[in-house]
């Protein structure tokens, strides 16, 4: 089981103090800002570092490419493919 990190771990987001607004409304703006700051702190601790990590599966990944091939395409190509086999008998 190997773990690889796809992104750099982000730090906790910080809110710049809204100086203009604080100056106008005073105490109320500060209360709003403090609430937002607390919410960000809690969110940050939940995200635990804020990086995306992927665990490799134990089983090999099998991709069935043949599934997308449609029957109508196969029928269209059949005659030509038959000629190709006839003309390249050394490799068929």
């Amino acid at each position, binding site marked *: 089981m190997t773990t690889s990190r796809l992104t750099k771990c982000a730090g906790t987001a910080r809110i710049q103090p809204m100086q203009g607004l604080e100056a106008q409304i005073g105490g109320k703006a500060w209360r709003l800002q403090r609430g937002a700051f607390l919410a960000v702190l809690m969110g940050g601790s939940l995200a635990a570092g804020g990086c995306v990590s992927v665990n490799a599966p134990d089983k090999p990944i099998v991709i069935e490419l043949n599934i997308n091939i449609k*029957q109508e395409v*196969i029928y269209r190509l059949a005659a*030509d493919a038959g000629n190709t086999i006839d003309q390249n*008998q050394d490799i068929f």
Partner: protein
Amino acid sequence: MKARNFKTSTLLTLGAGALALAMLSAGTSASAEGRDPVYAAARASGQVGEKLDGYLGFPTPPSAALRSVVEDINIKRKAVYAQKAQANNATVEEYAFTAGCLAIARTTPGEKYQAPDGSWQTRGAGAPNRDSRCP
């Protein structure tokens, strides 16, 4: 009158004989013309089989020499598939899969081929077990 009849029938017999001979020689050369002897022998013994995707595969682990020969053939097949696919506005995978359908159909009894579930099968006297989309 009698002599002429004899002549005609002789000619007919000769003609039919020549035709049969031509068909016989065509029949024997159709399956193995120009194949590498290593490849031909491995095919006959079931060490090499036709896969679903239009390439050759190994039902049993191959020797280094056989692997080399077969990988070379697969590269040549891919080159042919790519060229023909482009000419027919198809993907290489589509063309290769179609050729695989036909190559499996043309296996002779005793040769190996891959069934739709991916398992290796030995071609019997009847039709091979092929993908439902095969023509």
